[in-house]
């Protein structure tokens, strides 16, 4: 009975937690602490001009460093791209939160980035960097 009560309480707290950010307005994200919103792709842009690199990087103008951020918690089905393992992991975490961590929010699809730059000799290099751009995020 004690165990059932504890589980129900935990389940309730997860539902409550979920409802807190389920319809959370995105514009309020910056006021919330990091990780209080569901797993999603965010973006951070580094301008090469700001780094003083315009003399050698020809293209692109900057690095669009998308990243994944947010929580993966019950019910996992509402999160983007949750793997089967993430669902099992959520249940295990729900019952034994201190033994198993909740699933992580991580890139589920990556694409390549090309950079065009001058080397020291004035040769021009076009290099492809695979798996450098986060295309989508998911719970793993």
């Amino acid at each position, binding site marked *: 009975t004690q165990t059932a009560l504890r589980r129900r309480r935990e389940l309730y707290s997860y539902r409550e937690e979920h409802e807190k950010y389920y319809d959370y307005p995105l514009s309020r*994200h910056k006021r919330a602490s990091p990780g209080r919103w569901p797993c999603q792709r*965010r973006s951070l842009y580094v301008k090469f001009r700001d780094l003083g690199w315009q003399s050698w990087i020809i293209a692109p*103008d900057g690095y669009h460093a998308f990243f994944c951020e947010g929580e993966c918690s019950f019910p996992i089905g509402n999160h983007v791209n949750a793997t089967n393992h993430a669902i099992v992991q959520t249940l295990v975490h729900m019952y034994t939160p201190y033994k198993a961590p909740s699933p992580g929010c991580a890139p589920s699809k990556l*694409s*390549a980035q090309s950079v065009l730059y001058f080397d020291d*000799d*004035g*040769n*021009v290099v076009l290099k*492809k960097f695979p798996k450098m751009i986060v295309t989508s995020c998911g719970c793993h």
Partner: protein
Amino acid sequence: YYVDNGIGQTEKVHEMNSRDKRELQHEILTLLGLHQRPKPKSSTTKDSAPTFMLNLYNSITSDNGVVKDDGNFHSSHNVTIGDSVVQPIEGTDVIISFVNKAKRVPHLRHEKDRTFFFDFSDVTSKETVVGAELRLYKEKAKKWKKNHEFHIQMYMIKQGQDPEDKILEPVTNVTAYANTEGWITFNMTRAAERWTRQPESNLGLFMKVLFVSKGREIDPNKLGIVSYRGSEDKKPFMVGFFSSQEMVYPHR
């Protein structure tokens, strides 16, 4: 730092101090596989090689340099420069355009209109040559009738028995006419493979132009081939297509 706030706006969230900027520079340079930021003496994108490479870049990438499709360079990603079409070879990870450095090489600088030196010393053994091409611009030659035929022959310069001896080994040739105008492409894959495997064997290239009907050699300038003296956007250059066995990414 600018962060996308999720509702189609970008917000400035952090102004970096100079120390943070230095650290960020180091982080990105490491990701690019560079030890330090390159310091090219000349970095104009109006020259022939940077223009060619920028066209190539624009044809194979969408906005922000993201490679189209599945992340591979494809033969469908054609780039047209003047009247010539370039097809990036499949399996290519790195494309490098090399500028002609014949002026700086003692045994070549007396024949600057006919010689080429492309420095492959920075190409590592981890990179495999998928293809290479030399690109020369030819203007119309008014001295001859338009249908007069010429053979442009490229030779690899090899070391002879004496240190002063140099041997010419034919690599490839192209037939052109007096009225031909535009970029002429020579397949230099064999030469690039050798220079990558044995950098010390790279002694440069030599060009001969043969007037076919007369059976004699002529000055390449008279046929309208643009040399180091020509306009910047028509200067010769070489393009190497490489596949990289191992992209070095430090574990973080």
